[in-house]
């Protein structure tokens, strides 16, 4: 095994096992309660508002390609897109999905189409609900600004991987008078979302979207497994700091293996 990755390997296996165990448990009906997550709860409110006003919902699933190391955020964003698209389908509300990563484009189209099928409104689905703007960071940003203002979007959901364009999108939404819900795990960008948006999914709250919104038992189980992994992380942090304080380096050595 590659030196320096042995402990990492076992930690990964442990996390896999924890998630798997709780998913199996959930299949048998042992479902956890989940604490409220404001940003996710606000999604329905946002779509509702757009419906009332008769104006579209604007959705951006981040800018990461699905074959990049940031793919997980895009995939989490697409889970949320699937929920939002089901709602817009059910209420006949307009939906504009703006895509920046070319290879996310066909995937996002698939996700939206499926949502419309699922609610029984295949005829209401329009492929133009998913539009590719640009893979150039700020060309994408300027296109989003323009579209949000021209179409007077009533809700803007921006979740996934973002870079400096985050504030551009958030302020654009604000100026369009839209209710704004954002989410990302990138540390440099969360602050801009937190300051400029109505609701922000911070870090892992983004990944909770799929389970929280669908109430899918397997995903809820997965969440419980994730919590166990976090609990173990907390214990490791505490134990490691205590051991180091007393001059014992064993845990530090273990983590370097």
């Amino acid at each position, binding site marked *: *095994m*590659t030196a320096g*990755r042995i402990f990492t390997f076992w930690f*990964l296996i442990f*996390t*896999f096992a924890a*998630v*798997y165990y709780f*998913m199996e448990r959930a299949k048998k009906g042992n479902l956890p309660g989940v604490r409220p997550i404001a940003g996710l709860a606000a999604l329905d409110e946002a779509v509702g508002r757009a419906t009332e006003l008769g104006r579209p919902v604007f959705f951006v699933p981040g800018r990461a*390609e*699905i*074959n990049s190391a940031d793919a*997980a955020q895009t*995939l*989490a964003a*697409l*889970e949320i897109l699937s929920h939002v698209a089901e709602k817009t389908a059910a209420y006949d509300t307009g939906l504009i999905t703006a895509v920046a990563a*070319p*290879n996310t*484009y*066909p*995937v996002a189209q*698939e*996700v939206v189409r*499926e949502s419309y099928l699922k609610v029984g409104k295949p005829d209401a689905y329009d492929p*133009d609900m998913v*539009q*590719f*703007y640009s*893979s*150039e*960071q*700020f*060309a994408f940003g*300027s296109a989003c600004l323009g579209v949000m203002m021209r179409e007077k979007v009533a809700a803007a959901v921006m979740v996934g991987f973002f870079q*400096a364009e985050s*504030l*551009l999108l*958030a*302020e654009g939404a*604000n100026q369009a008078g839209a209710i704004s819900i954002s989410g990302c*795990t990138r540390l440099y960008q*969360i602050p801009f979302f*937190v*300051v*400029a948006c109505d609701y922000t999914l*911070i*870090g*892992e709250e*983004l*990944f*909770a979207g*799929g389970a929280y919104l669908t109430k899918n038992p*397997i*995903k809820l189980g*997965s969440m419980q497994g*994730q919590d166990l*992994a*976090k609990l173990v*992380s907390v214990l490791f942090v505490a134990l490691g700091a205590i051991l180091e304080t007393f001059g014992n380096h064993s845990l530090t050595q273990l983590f370097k293996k």
Partner: protein
Amino acid sequence: MKRELPLGITAVVGFLFLVQYFFKIAILKSMTDELTDWGTIVSAFAALLAAAGLYKIHLEKIARRKGPWEMSIVLVLVMTAFIIFGVFLGQKSAPYLFLSNQVLVPLSAAIFSLLIFYIGSAAFRAFRLRNLEAGLLLGSGFLVMLGRAPIGEVVWKKFPVIADWLMKWPNLAGNRGVLIGASIGSIAIGLRILVGIDRGHLGQD
């Protein structure tokens, strides 16, 4: 077949990359390197698909005189010209370089520089002492701004020190916590996709 084959590909490719990361096996290394190149090639086709989508939308707008359709004409013309310059005249030809250096680069810089204005309006709107949490956000943001402003240290020598402390300790601690949580979220979604539980991205039939 329509469902199993794609799920199988994802699982096999994913586990291959994971095993390669943890175990030193020469053949796996060359396989994953090759697959990474394949990913680049396939993604390049996705870019062509996306561009085709852009053409479709704007040509339709022009045909139906929908929205700011005159602008769509400009978009289609500029895009076509750039492609022709790049593919037929080459990436070192004068017209290609003009469009990249005098249009693309300055526009990126211009849109990027809008951010300071938006920082101003966002700070004015959101940095308010509404409650404890908003107060912490406001307080630390305000102190760091003062510490980073050249004029801040003229007012009080300690402002830069405070700003550095905030960046070095609370900022780092918060970031670490967020990273640890988010990484576990990534691992879970990764596992669910590899074993085929999450398959929304593949659509349905």
